[in-house]
């Protein structure tokens, strides 16, 4: 039986090396521009670093995927097309794409380059996945975080495309690639600029004994003394609805599937993706190591014998915002 892959994020070359050293089967990274959805300052790869990163991964038996998951902009689409060319030239193991025009270009120009459909393409059902397979020959789809485990299992029965799922990290609670909340408030959009809730739009204000967090001038949450303040993304904000003040969409916290690992693997996914290209090298190393241990334990003990060790959960919780975790949409009750 082919083992499920542990796929780790790399925001820079040291993180990539840490991921490989910690047991990642594969890593993914993007270039230092708007061509990927983690376009943060000081993050991502130059061409030279990409070349070194891919060589490093290959030398250690790991695969390296390149991320190109935003939509080419009209003013200057060159960087997007250049990234496709680079992925082929550098012999990346896969190129992760969201846009149909780029998929067309990549498939026509580089028939042998494996293409993975980005989560930003929001393909959450067999008809959508079939469409991308039929036209662009995608090998794999990264599923948006909108499906239950049962729905993923069903989906696997209806498609020959490989399924990759998010296993750990920051939790988008919206259908990825189709969320305008950031641009509604800040003017900056994941689809256009590759950025959600940019740091320059964030303010932390002390007012009347409360810490108020704002995004684009909009009050996202307020905290009393001793409460931990979360980064103000709208979907994790505390607002007023139905006469209550609460996290209207979702509490700050991380997605963590470890407790459901047997079900997730049993559903037929091929790859467990760790979110967090914007996180530190030590985050990447820690999470990758735990995920590696857990996956190995699963294959050693079997679905029946596997238990998520409290030690793993403790270590993972310590890396995550709000220090809580959720099974998110994989569990129907969450919806």
């Amino acid at each position, binding site marked *: 039986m082919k083992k499920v892959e542990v796929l780790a994020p790399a925001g820079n070359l040291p993180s990539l090396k840490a991921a490989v050293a910690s047991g990642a089967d594969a890593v993914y990274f993007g270039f230092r521009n708007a061509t990927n959805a983690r376009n943060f300052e000081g993050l991502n790869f130059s061409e030279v670093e990409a070349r070194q990163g891919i060589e490093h991964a290959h030398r250690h038996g790991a695969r390296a995927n390149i991320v190109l998951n935003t939509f080419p902009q*009209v003013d200057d*689409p060159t960087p997007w097309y250049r990234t496709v060319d680079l992925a082929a030239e550098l012999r990346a193991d896969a190129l992760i794409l969201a*846009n149909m*025009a780029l998929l067309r270009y990549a498939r026509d120009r580089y028939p042998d380059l494996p293409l993975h459909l980005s989560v930003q393409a*929001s393909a959450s*059902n067999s008809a959508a996945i079939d469409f991308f397979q039929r036209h662009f020959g995608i090998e794999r789809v990264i599923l948006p975080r909108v499906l239950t485990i049962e729905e993923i299992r069903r989906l696997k029965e209806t498609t020959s495309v490989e399924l990759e799922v998010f296993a750990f990290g920051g939790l988008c609670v919206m259908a990825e690639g189709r969320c305008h909340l950031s641009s509604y408030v800040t003017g900056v959009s994941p689809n256009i600029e590759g950025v959600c809730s940019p740091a320059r739009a964030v303010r932390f204000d002390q007012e009347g004994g409360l810490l108020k967090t704002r995004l684009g001038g*909009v009050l996202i949450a307020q905290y009393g003394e001793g409460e931990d303040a979360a980064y103000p993304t709208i979907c994790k904000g505390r607002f007023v609805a139905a006469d209550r003040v609460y996290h209207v*969409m979702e509490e700050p916290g991380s997605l963590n599937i470890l407790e459901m690992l047997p079900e997730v693997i049993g559903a037929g996914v091929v790859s467990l993706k760790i979110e967090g290209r914007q996180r530190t090298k030590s985050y990447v190393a820690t999470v990758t190591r735990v995920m590696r241990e857990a996956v190995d334990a699963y294959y050693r003990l079997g679905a029946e014998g596997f238990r998520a060790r409290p030690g793993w959960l403790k270590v993972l919780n310590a890396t995550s915002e709000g220090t809580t975790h959720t099974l998110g949409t994989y569990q129907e009750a969450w919806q």
Partner: protein
Amino acid sequence: MRIAVGPVLFDWGKRAIEEYYRRLAFESEADILYLGEVVCSKRLGLGPEELGRLARELAGSGKEVVFSTLGLVMNDGELERVRRVVALAGELGLKVEANDMAAIGLGEGQPMVAGPHINTYNPETLAFLATVGVVRVVLPVELSARAIAGVIGKRGDLPMERELFAYGHMPLTFSARCYTARAFELPKSNCQYKCGEFPEGLPTMTQDGSDFLLMNGIQTMSARVCNLVAETEEIQGLGVDIVRLSPRKERFREVVGLWRQRLDGRLDAVTAAAKLAELDPGTRFCNGYFHGRPGLEQVP
């Protein structure tokens, strides 16, 4: 420019929605009517059967009828629903609006509208979609005028009609989670159809009391009403063929009428804007996206 009335995004119930469209068909100046459930497969609004019946009934009005489909397709039941609506549109010779790539896949070869939930951020994407049957695009709501110009190019570049969301609460995103049910501490699987209690979504305010968002089941919308009535000349200049007005519960045919007058040059921009505001006291309007600003802003 023609006026399209978008799909009703709220849960008003079957009868109310049917009556709403009947009156729009026979008593309004709209040119195109989009019918069908976009937000939630659990709602008992216009299903495939009602769509067929209503489309036949409205045919005599001379308006173009288009079937809209679900925005987020997550399981077999939802996929089947989209399949039936796409097939029905084919049988009746109507266009079908795709709001999830599932519908593009199922409708390939049929005349389709790429709805506002399909990511069309560049002309190359539109050129590709034209090869699979897309004959009209409704642009993503977050595009600026400048971006729109780039995406749709010059008139004649693309064999495709261009439609712009120009009035109404903007659909901003979808989730697997139902936020209306969550507000009442209910799971989606037992939502008790709470959306039915909020004809324009569940108001969601910031803690300092400003209207911010609307929770509309699994959809999140802007609390402010997008209104580009003062920008119609610029919109026309961009090569937009159709403006989309998104259904609201009250006095909507008057909204359509005011837009018609404005598009025909019978009302100036200032008067049209003032009259729309009068129809809807207390509502805050926004036009930020069009001007390259945050969507919630109102640029004077």
